[in-house]
């Protein structure tokens, strides 16, 4: 009895000392599907490594607007030691001066992603995953209409022909749902050779842009597409999973929508079609990285956690769950990615999107999301029939000129 007591006391003392020596690192990201992913990494895949590094990870996911949360938390000094940074608002976060550059070796990561997170010559976030846009198609609809599936060598014109043929054959089905959103339209605008910012940092909606704009908005009158809002949907994937359209323009995130909305859908993925004139395709890079809080008391441990969370072992696991695409270049040869299921195909094509002709990260300097507003409004006014292409583009150009004037 006495011995047991001593043994117990000794054991609990041991437990206390080991718990006391482990460093607590608070990490935070957004909620939703990400919670299962991060939990899986810290409690399962990386549990041993974290224990070996004497680090105890405290995971605090945040529901709601994460960029607002992190802005407030950083300014109030209550931010977690390590947190997600979305490329979209990354400049606002990096500009606070509250962010520590990464100490990890960045060479194994895809160079596009590292460039996207480079600020003032320093890499401020370790990319954890990424996405690009691709063309998803419903095989059954193409079969029913007797039209050949889209290929990786499609151009805007050949795709349009296929979509028109489908709608002609199956009047209840539209080709594509178009949305007045630069986050999708950019795949075509960039393909035309247009650049969002010219050498002087100004946005000029040139002839290339107009060609892409006229083609994209012209899909509806041509009978190749319908405005998503007109069929009660908010995104091209929504129309796709409800089989209202034959194709969608989305990233690998569409897997989640299909799993929830149409688990038996028979679908495939092709690359974004090319502009017949420039011969190139465009694409956007959406990526999220882990950023260390410069005010953290446990910066070194936080850097270590960031490295572990983006390690090959972690990314391999995430990839095989079909949850996100790895940011490490070496994983492109992963055998899982060579498979033929729709999930594997979409991931492979999204990976390839990283090397499309004109690919840009999804951020717009100091202007943030406000930069997209003139383009989105122009798309919207043409899609709703309130303006013609020239009027809409002139109004958008005037807004960009106004922004440039305000900046000076």
């Amino acid at each position: 009895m006495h011995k047991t007591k001593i043994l117990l006391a000794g054991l609990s003392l041991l437990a206390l000392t080991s718990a006391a020596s482990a460093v607590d690192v608070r990490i935070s990201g957004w909620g939703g599907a990400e919670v299962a992913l991060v939990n899986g990494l810290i409690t399962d895949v990386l549990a041993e490594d974290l224990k070996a590094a004497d680090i105890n990870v405290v995971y605090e996911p945040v529901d709601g607007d994460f960029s607002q949360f992190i802005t407030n938390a950083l300014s109030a000094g209550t931010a977690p030691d390590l947190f997600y940074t979305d490329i979209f608002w990354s400049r606002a976060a990096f500009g606070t001066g509250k962010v520590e550059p990464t100490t990890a070796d960045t060479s194994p990561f895809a160079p596009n992603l590292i460039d996207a997170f480079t600020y003032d010559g320093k890499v401020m976030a370790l990319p954890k995953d990424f996405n690009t846009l691709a063309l998803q198609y419903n095989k059954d609809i193409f079969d029913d209409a007797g039209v050949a599936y889209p290929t990786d060598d499609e151009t805007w014109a050949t795709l349009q022909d296929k979509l028109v043929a489908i709608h002609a054959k199956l009047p209840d089905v539209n080709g594509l749902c178009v949305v007045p959103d630069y986050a999708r339209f950019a795949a075509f605008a960039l393909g035309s050779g247009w650049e969002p910012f010219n050498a002087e940092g100004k946005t000029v909606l040139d002839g290339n842009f107009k060609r892409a704009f006229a083609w994209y908005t012209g899909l509806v009158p041509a009978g190749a597409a319908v405005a998503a809002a007109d069929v009660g949907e908010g995104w091209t994937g929504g129309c796709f999973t409800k089989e209202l359209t034959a194709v969608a323009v989305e990233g690998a995130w569409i897997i989640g929508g299909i799993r929830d909305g149409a688990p038996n859908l028979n679908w495939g993925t092709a690359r974004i079609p090319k502009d017949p004139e420039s011969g190139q395709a465009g694409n956007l890079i959406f990526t999220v990285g882990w950023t260390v809080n410069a005010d953290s008391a446990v910066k070194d441990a936080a850097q270590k956690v960031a490295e572990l969370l983006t390690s090959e072992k972690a990314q391999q696991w995430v990839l095989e769950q079909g949850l996100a695409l790895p940011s490490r270049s070496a994983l492109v040869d992963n055998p899982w990615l060579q498979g033929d299921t729709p999930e594997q195909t979409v991931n492979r094509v999204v990976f390839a999107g990283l090397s499309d002709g004109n690919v840009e990260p999804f951020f717009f300097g100091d202007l943030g999301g406000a930069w997209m507003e003139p383009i989105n409004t122009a798309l919207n006014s043409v899609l709703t029939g309130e303006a013609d292409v020239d009027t809409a583009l002139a109004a958008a150009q005037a807004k960009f000129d106004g922004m440039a004037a305000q900046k000076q």
Partner: protein
Amino acid sequence: MNQRQRDHVVGYLFVLPFLISLGTFFLYAAVRTLIFSFTDYNLFNTPAFIGLSNYVAMLRDSMFTLALSNTLAFSLIVTVSQTILALLLAVMVNGVIKARGFWRTVFYLPSIMSSAAMTLIFLWLFQRQGLMTELVQFVVNARWYIAAFLAIFLAIQLALVFNARRRYDGVSLADPVFATVALGGAIVATYLLRLGALLPVYDEQFLISWLNTQARVLFLPQTLWSVALMNVFTTVPTLMLLFLAGLQSIPVALYEAAELDGAGRVRQFLYVTVPSLTPVTFAVVTLGIIGTLQMFDQVAILGDAAPLQSRITLAFYIYANAFPEGAASRIGMSSAAAILLGVLTLIIVYLQRALGISDKVDR
């Protein structure tokens, strides 16, 4: 300490909790906002004094002038229409009618919903192919039947009311119980007309952009007209309750005296009810002005469902500067706009008093 001093201390103790919260969350916050409005501040730098630059930049910002005009127009339209509707509803519910409790509850229902939930429901109703569009299509296509329905309804209602008035006093023209009977009668009669296919039905298909449009109607974007409709729908019931309380405090003797002087129901309403309700009207109009000038949640929830320029209000402008999407906070600009909104609210409430809607009964 004598009794008087002790009373003083106790008095202060009672108001202390309120003073603390007022001091912290209003006075301190307001003073800081005022200071920030003269600085260049993004939450992370040291605020640098830049004088009136934020105000100048704001006045030059076309989005700000748009937000200001949208806010003023929205406030005017919603305040006027919700006050008039609330008063009419209150008088109706207050009248000599059957099942008053039931109607009061029915009319109050829209107010118990959260505005977030209400906005989502309206978003769905206002889709281009949504229920509102279908409703308009229905009205257009079935116009002959609707006209017939209304005519039958009116005929039955008037017949019932005038019949009842031969026996009772004060039967309202809009008596809800008779209206229910008339409604039933009109539905049956119209259905019979339809069965016999006696009137033409059209088949016109069209889409209406209720929210997602840059069109302007009069001096307000069409989107904000839709939001105004939703706003009136949700706030009228609460204001109706205020008017109802006011109505019940008007002495019956006043109406009796007016009746002896030969005043009809309309004159009684205009010369007894409306003047006696001035303090309530003041409260209702003031609440309306403040609520509409600061309207934010409904346009925020609209989000990408409508173009920014069609939905921006001053309160949203303040928010959009404090937390711009994907860009650094502009707290200085945001504070300047907030100060301006505060001053504007004070001026308008003052103007309203100066223009005759006061908090005193003028008999």
